[in-house]
């Protein structure tokens, strides 16, 4: 156990090695490690954020779906109502039309009847007159009896 210059040599080596390590070895390695740790932390945070965003988007999608369903239900409801309305309207119109047709037909019928009646009346008058002529076997002054015949016809 003799002390000699090895001690000094080792001490000088020590300082040189420590200096080299502190200048060229430690900073790049620890820098890369710190940077990676930061990157990983950022990545984790981003993943968290993405997860939150996804949840939010999902919630939103569900909401929108619900809203769309509601809207669709409203629309269908409205359409149904409108359809009913249209049917009702059509029915009303048809009924009205029918009524109108009926009325006009009735009026026509009445007209026809009246006309027939007039005709009949005229015919009956002339028949009556001719009948009377025949009965009386004489010519009756038509003009003189026309009043009489008119009254008769009106009574028919």
């Amino acid at each position, binding site marked *: 156990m*003799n002390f000699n210059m090895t001690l000094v040599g*080792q001490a000088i080596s020590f300082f040189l090695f420590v200096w080299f390590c*502190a200048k060229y070895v*430690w900073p790049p*390695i620890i820098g890369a490690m710190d940077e990676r740790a930061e990157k990983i932390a950022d990545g984790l945070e981003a993943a968290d954020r993405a997860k939150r965003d996804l949840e939010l988007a999902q919630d939103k999608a569900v909401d929108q779906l619900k809203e769309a369903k509601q809207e669709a239900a409203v629309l269908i409801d409205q359409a149904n109502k409108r359809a009913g309305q249209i049917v009702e309207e059509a029915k009303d119109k048809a009924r009205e039309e029918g009524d109108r047709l009926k009325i006009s037909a009735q009026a026509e019928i009445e007209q026809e009847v009246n006309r027939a009646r007039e005709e009949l009346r005229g015919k009956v008058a002339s028949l009556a007159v001719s009948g009377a002529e025949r009965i009386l076997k004489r010519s009756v002054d038509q003009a003189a009896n026309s009043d009489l015949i008119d009254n008769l016809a009106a009574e028919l």
Partner: protein
Amino acid sequence: MSSTGETQSSSEIIAHHLTNLTYGRHDDGTWGIAHGSADIAEMGFMAINLDSMFFSLLLGGLFLLVFRMVAKRATVGVPGRMQNMVEMAVEMINDNVKSMFNHKSPVVAPMALTVFMWVLLMNVMDLVPIDFLPKLAGLFGVPYLKVVPTTDVNVTMGMALSVFIVMVFYSIKQKGAGGFAAELSFHPFGKMALPINLFLEVVNLLSKPLSLGLRLFGNLYAGEMIFILIALLPFWTQPFLSVPWAIFHILIIFLQAFIFMVLTVVYMAQAFTVDEH
């Protein structure tokens, strides 16, 4: 040197294994390799252990080379195997430093990394079979070779003293020379007992590098010694003794490197902490 290959006594073998390859000035004024511990003792301080320095620089250089290569190509993305391994070491050191040292310093963590990896690599040399490298070197005419630098007290004390110098430097830098002196003078017993305080604190201060260096040296020296003693036994005992001891020694190798690193950081933390007095 001519004795290699001839039968040696146990004590000769042990002494041979525990002798450094020392270069220095001989008694007769010539420079050269020392032969035996008596020769080394005569050389005194102006000599150098070539084997210790060689392996110490080789291993420290290896550590820095590998780590520098990784640092140059360090990617923020997915790291490769090598970078993973290096990052594991760096992170282990960084966590330890963070838990023990709560000041800002660009030096302490890299120093802890250097100390840990360097000491670990030097300790690992202990697992190389005890005769491998010395015999190999012997073929090339190298008479002595101690392959584990941390079994050389010069190496461990050299590192411990360096840590001590850094510690004193930061103590003075953080607290000022006056603050450092005050810490040594007024500490355990107040201002009235200045000489006692000074004595206690100086002893306390000096015990730090001493215990740091001698603990590492002692542990590794003892471990190496047991390997040498096992190597003296008949060859068929080797697997039953050398292997279990080597496996157990892995723990010591790692633990001593770790303790050296932790104590270095703790001493730095003490140097940086300004006492409220």
